């Protein structure tokens, strides 16, 4: 063999003509008549797919607490203001400081819980974003059974990052109230709902959008709700009309959770959990829900009728989602004042008014 380098220099004169053009995926597997990608994009679009593409960005993906089968750590939400207010379902997913909200373009934000209404099972979050696409709640029409609708949500967490949320089709089968009898539906909500024939009661769907085929928002997708009597799951959504006032209240700062910017009011003799005779469950995780473990005999709580396993939801009009929040809220109340507690007991919301300490003994701080 002769010297290799010299021969290669002779052979490799000029570039090879054929070249290696970048192949689009279309080249490799072309169906007959397929055009370049840009042309195909518009060829496949329909009026409905356009509507869906238009409203999908109003729906966000929410990530938080949970992560077990049956308690998945994700759900959906809808943007309701250009500044980044998010309306979603009030659920265990929000039981964390680290609520993540992912927009349709893949941007991730920290969601701050502004407030919630446990009776309606809704919550409003705020993300630090501007100019986001949003649903105007004031424009949401009321619709009747027979209306064909689309449900947009991140059911089963299928969509990740900038992937669009899923869309299902259905019809409003009925407009009715959830059964008021205690123990039928595992929810405190007794208002009007749209019952759907689309399977929306899936993990991750809660907080999603129910829209008409023209893209008008009509309702918020509900949670996985079971009828305790016959063990069937209900596909439902809550009409926006039922939610408007509460959302306004939350945005206005009523039904607020914590008031970090307000300095704690100086109270002469601040109340305490112990002083009321309530023993809470051990406060071990970041935001331990304030479940009542024991009630001290003869205490104000006992006299009012608080029971073990009650979950304290509100002190007065303020949400207390954690033991810490409950304690801080009580510290704002003077020992002379009555304490109104709202608790969740077996899916019912009950109100109790606790009097001043009966025994008059000194309350521990």
């Amino acid at each position, binding site marked *: *063999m002769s010297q*290799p380098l*010299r*021969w*290669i220099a*002779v*052979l*490799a*004169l*000029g*570039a*090879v*003509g*054929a070249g*290696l053009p*970048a192949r*689009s*995926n279309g*080249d*490799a*597997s*072309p*169906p007959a008549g*397929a055009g370049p*990608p840009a042309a*195909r994009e518009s060829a*496949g*679009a*329909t*009026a*409905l*797919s356009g*509507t869906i*593409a238009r409203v*999908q960005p109003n729906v966000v993906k929410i990530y938080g607490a949970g992560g077990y089968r*049956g308690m998945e750590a994700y759900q959906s939400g809808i943007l309701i203001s250009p500044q980044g207010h998010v309306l979603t379902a009030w659920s265990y997913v929000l039981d964390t400081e680290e609520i993540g909200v992912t927009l349709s373009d*893949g941007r991730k934000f920290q969601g701050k819980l502004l407030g919630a209404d446990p009776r309606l099972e809704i919550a409003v979050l705020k993300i630090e974003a501007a100019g986001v696409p949003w649903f105007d709640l004031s424009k949401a029409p009321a619709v*009747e*059974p*027979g*209306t*064909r609708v689309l449900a947009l949500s991140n*059911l*089963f967490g*299928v*969509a*990740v*990052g*900038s*992937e*669009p949320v*899923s*869309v*299902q*089709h259905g019809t409003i089968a009925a407009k009715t109230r959830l059964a008021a009898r205690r123990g039928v539906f595992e929810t405190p909500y007794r208002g009007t709902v749209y019952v759907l024939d689309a*399977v*929306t009661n899936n993990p991750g769907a809660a907080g999603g959008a129910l829209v008409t*085929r*023209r893209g008008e928002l009509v309702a918020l997708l509900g949670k*996985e709700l079971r009828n305790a009597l016959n063990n069937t799951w209900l596909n439902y959504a809550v009409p926006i009309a039922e939610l408007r006032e509460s959302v306004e209240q939350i945005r206005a700062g009523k039904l607020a959770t914590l008031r970090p910017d307000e300095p704690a009011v100086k109270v002469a003799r601040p109340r305490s959990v112990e002083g009321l005779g309530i023993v809470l469950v051990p406060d071990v995780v970041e935001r331990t829900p304030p479940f009542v473990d024991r009630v001290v005999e003869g205490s104000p709580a006992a006299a009012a009728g608080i029971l073990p396993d009650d979950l304290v939801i509100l002190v007065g009009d303020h949400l207390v989602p954690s033991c810490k929040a409950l304690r801080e809220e009580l510290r704002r109340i003077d020992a002379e004042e009555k304490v109104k507690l709202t608790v969740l007991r077996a899916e019912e919301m009950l109100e109790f008014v606790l009097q001043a300490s009966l025994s008059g003994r000194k309350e521990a701080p």
Partner: protein
Amino acid sequence: MTLSSAIAVVLFWAAGLAAAAGVPPEVPPEVLKAEAERIAVIEKAKDSVLAVFSAAGGGGGSGVVISADGYALSNFHVAMPTGPAMKCGMADGRLYDAVVVGLDPTGDVALVKLFGRDDFPHAELADSDQVRAGDSVFAMGNPFLLATDFQPTATWGIISGVHRYQFPAGTLLEYTDCLQTDASINPGNSGGPLFDARGRLIGINGRASFEKRGRVSVGAGYAISINQVRNFLGYLHSGRIVDHATLGATVGVDEERRLVVTDVLDTSDAYRRGLRYGDEVLAFGGRTVETPNAFKNVLGIFPKGWRVPLSYRRNGKRFDVLVRLAGVHSEDELLAKLSGRGPREPMPIPKPGELPIPAAKAKPAMPEIVRKHFDEKRGYANYYFNRLHRDRVWKAWNARGDFAGQDRTWLLAGTLARGDKFTLSVAGGQVVLSLPRGDVKWSVPEELGSALEPAGSGGLFAALSLWRRLAVEGLDKFGEVTYLGTAPWAGHPGLLDVLVGRHGGVECRYYFDVATGLLAGLEMAAHEHADPCELHFTEYRESDGRWTPRRIEVRCGDEPVADFKVDLFTVSRPDPP
């Protein structure tokens, strides 16, 4: 108000009136027309749908016929438990014998062939990339094994999402780039068709999200996109157990939400094409990719061995390359998937009183027609079809120029890029390249991989000798020649038939134009971790009853090696002793 909401309102109003008057409601003609169209589409589509059963008559799922001679698609997890022979019921009420052709365990696809007709009703394959969320679709098949008369069940819905990624169940059934639908997909639907509103095939149903209610549809089903199936179709026809692709690199999202390379194998083709840790990946397989899922979606639709485009950026500079995709599994790993317990994804529900499908059952004898079309061979689902296509491709090539059995030297003469004259003489034992400055003689060694001269060419002389060897020795004497499937070849439109020959310790791939049967290219890989020598054959001319290329471009890696313009191609007298 849109037509659809107008229809809803009118219907409701009309129903209200009618209910009051006891008169059947008047339905607007547009509604009746839409209904009639739907009925017609389903009526036609049902003819190509299969109810798939094992030879013993139990279990199974669904399938769909895609050609008049009876080739049909189903899921791997439907075909695997049935074994090579199965029975397929069609809407005409008849039960047809069928044999497995090719299997794709990772992608969950199976290709089978039905017997008994040459005019099977079959589905038209559409372009699944055209599908959008909101499009009306319908699934057909045999959910819950309801179709005792083989009339498939139809379930209607919309596309809920496209280009979805579904994590593998175990190591199988990774549904990349799949279609999501809320049309009911239940156990028994597996392997059956997802049709668009015009009745064209856009996907193969196979998975669904099941949770608190067990294995029943809850509005989230998934279908393998037909475009992915199309990419693999040639490989499936080859009777192989097909493997999926890996790039040899992993990607992730950095703090600036860019998709970057997080790891790259230095033995991979991607590395040889310049890809490095930290590079930003812009496009892959002709598609813009921004997330790891999007990347995995693209990877999942290609078989191993294909060359696909990749675009990446480093320090503001963009690189566009073609990378060869390696396989994900070793042959043993792939075979292990086949012999293991079947995957526990949507399996049919046994009828009341029936036991679930037992693992071992007395196997009935294979029907004669199936036995005639089945050849067992390690690494293949059905080697019979490999031989079928191998012989077909060879015959088509041979028809364009018969060199078989003629142990004579090939003489090529012409000019190189800069005008230098050359002659190439390719004989059974030797290749001689004559250039103005002198001759290079190269003798064919036992181990071709040990003599890859000229340096930097990847083995040009060896490749030339293997080109001649296949033409002259033919399928039986070359060594081991198998059919690979169909794959793209740079500079050539569409997909080409590929034969793989092993000789002298190296593997050589021959790419044939499907329409003309001519050899468009040849790739000889001496080692898995080195760039192969590529010969690109163009400008074919006929002389003396043979078609021969008038241009041979030689490449190795990203470098052009030589550009032979052939003025004369003759076959000489036998070699002197």
